[in-house]
């Protein structure tokens, strides 16, 4: 599947799976294709900037142009609310006054779903806006639990909220669930818990109207013939060509590598019947600096390593 088929792309997954790196890599791929792409972070601390080798944008401008095609922004509930007020109140002054009132802050903090709707509204404006217009808006989205909450909030907003928030809600719901315009990619690791989490989300996605894209399995080890029988280290050869004490360390390294491959394989087989296109991404040398890691991932997206296919292809003879 082409991960960049849609205009609006949300990248989700549990903490620690590599969501941010993958979102950044997707953005880089799009930019290399000379598309205008905006990549957006939702965290209070900018994690995308370091990954792309960019200084965080200095407010008030939310976009920092990297190369001509790649733009970076941060959306947070607070500034998104101010944005919203400025759009719907007669003057900037009124917007600021309301936004800074502790009464508003209390209500904003305590009302379920309100922050999500406001953030979603800001994202929608970025996607649908004409100045500037982006070919892609890629969001380093929240972990799966929060993504589901966001979709739930968007879904119920029409009946729960009134005023301009309520009115926006319909258009929001339409964009976020539109399979033609939006895709939600799930990033996971080749570990049992991660796969099961992804599977849970896939199971609930339809009900929540989440338009799933692909399952991106990240951090895959070298396969080491993971499907094959035992491989033994030729001790005599190693002792002869290297030195006598070389065998234990080589043996250990090899066994660890094979164990990783076997374990990855096992976890994917267990989650195997996930009805979603799968993309395999390699474990990348994380000693490289962050932009180096993202470039490697972008390369892997564009030119997938055929050896990793063994992890994500369905085994022969298994009925679907």
């Amino acid at each position: 599947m082409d991960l960049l088929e849609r205009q609006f792309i949300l990248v989700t997954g549990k903490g620690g799976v590599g969501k941010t790196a993958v979102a950044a890599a997707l953005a880089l791929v799009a930019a290399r294709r000379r598309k205008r792409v905006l990549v957006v972070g939702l965290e209070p601390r900018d994690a995308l900037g370091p990954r792309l080798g960019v200084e965080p944008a200095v407010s008030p401008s939310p976009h920092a142009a990297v190369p001509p095609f790649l733009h970076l922004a941060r959306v947070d509930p607070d500034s998104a609310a101010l944005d919203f007020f400025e759009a719907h109140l007669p003057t900037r002054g009124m917007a600021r006054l309301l936004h800074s009132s502790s009464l508003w802050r209390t209500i904003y903090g305590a009302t379920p779903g309100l922050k999500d709707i406001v953030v979603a509204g800001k994202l929608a404006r970025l996607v649908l806006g004409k100045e500037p217009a982006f070919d892609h808006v890629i969001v380093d989205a929240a972990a799966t639990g929060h993504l589901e909450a966001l979709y739930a909030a968007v879904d119920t907003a029409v009946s729960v909220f009134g005023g301009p928030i309520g009115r926006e809600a319909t258009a929001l719901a339409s964009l976020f669930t539109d399979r033609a315009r939006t895709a939600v990619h799930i990033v996971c690791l080749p570990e049992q818990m991660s796969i099961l989490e992804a599977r849970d989300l896939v199971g609930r996605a339809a009900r929540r109207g989440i338009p799933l894209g692909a399952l991106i399995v990240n951090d895959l080890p070298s396969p080491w013939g993971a499907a094959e029988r035992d491989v033994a280290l030729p001790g005599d050869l190693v002792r002869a060509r290297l030195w006598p004490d070389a065998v234990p360390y080589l043996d250990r390294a090899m066994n660890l590598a094979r164990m990783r491959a076997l374990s990855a394989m096992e976890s994917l087989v267990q989650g195997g019947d996930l009805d979603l296109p799968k993309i395999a991404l390699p474990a990348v040398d994380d000693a490289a600096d962050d932009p180096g890691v993202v470039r490697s991932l972008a390369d892997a997206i564009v030119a997938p390593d055929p050896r990793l296919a063994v992890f994500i292809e369905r085994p022969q003879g298994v009925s679907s």
Partner: protein
Amino acid sequence: MSTPAEPDGPAGGSFFDPGRPEGGASPTPPRGSATGRSARQKRAVSARIARPPTGTMPRVLIVVGSGGVGKTTISAALALAAARAGQRALVCTIDPARRLVDALKVGVLGDAPIDVPADALRGAGVELPEGAVLRAAELDMRRTWDRLIQYAAPTPEVARRLAENPLYQRVVDGLSGSHELAAMERLLELDAEEAQDLIVLDTPPGRHALDALAAPDDLLSNLDSGVLKLLGGMSRAGLGLAARGAQAVLGRVAGMIGGKTIEEVARFAGAFYDMADGLRVRAEGVQRLIQDPQRTGFVVVSSARPAAVEGALALIEALGERKLPIVRAIINRAAPRIDDSAARLLEAPDEARRRFADAVRSGVPDARVAVAALDAAVALARRTRVESERIARIAAALPAGIPTAVVADRGRSLAGLSDLAEVAAELS
């Protein structure tokens, strides 16, 4: 404790009684509640914390760390290590993996601690000393919050009002960041039971765990007590009684998001306001417990991956700022130490490869395997070197004398109790 609290604020007239403290100061407790549950509970909690630790008071380990580092497994391993050392140890988990729960052979993990069966441990090669036990529980958000509001409410009526509020479900679901509060509340409960020598508390990933340990007045994020009081008052006396300035703001907010929502929030906030005093007592109890180095220690868990290490460093700094005692750091899934062979390979990997070139060319059996193993060894050695630098950064950030333990990468997740026992042995 049967006197119901008088309603806060006068029956009619302005809410802004000049006699009441406003803004940032703690709200005066409503008449009647001072003689109720809150005050008695406060005395009990204070008395308990003020005593020097006795044989019956459990020690507490609070395990923090970024997502995906293996906090829950490490928490369970720490409890197992303590049990092996003769203690009655309990691990309270947050969101345990199926595999861990299966490994513990307790069926389903729930609110009430359950003993890991001795024969399950024996089967994994673990024999516990006389009197020792390993117990496990999982944080039950619903039950914990229901109990908390019972403790904190001045009357059962107030608790019921909150429990019936549709916004309460959101708190119970943990989406409003209430996981951390619930974990701390559960800790206070388990501590009071004095049924364990050690409680190991798993926490939700990331820094939010520490936000819940903030000053008692910051219980509910973004809710400042002056506004809370206002909303609480409004919910009882009707929106019309708010002072003119507040009314203007409310009007605008209602215009933005709809008036019905504001009413619901006002009712919700009102119910919480009524419990503010009781919630504060609990929060103060937690504060004192976790800040007492004789009772509590924090364990920072990380992996050797860059993001987790940054997370650990941020946690160490935050713990230091809040004067919370760190007892150790644990690096999980680390590459093995470099031995002499590995060091030699690191120095001249290409030369090592060349030694196999002719064997590969002439088709010596398994020569390719040897080369693949060599590549894996070089990669592993490099990984260890990079990881060592990161581990050193963590060690350097810790307070003086606090150790850093390293748990080896096994290349796979936990398979059973014997795996857990191996990790426990590494942590002993």
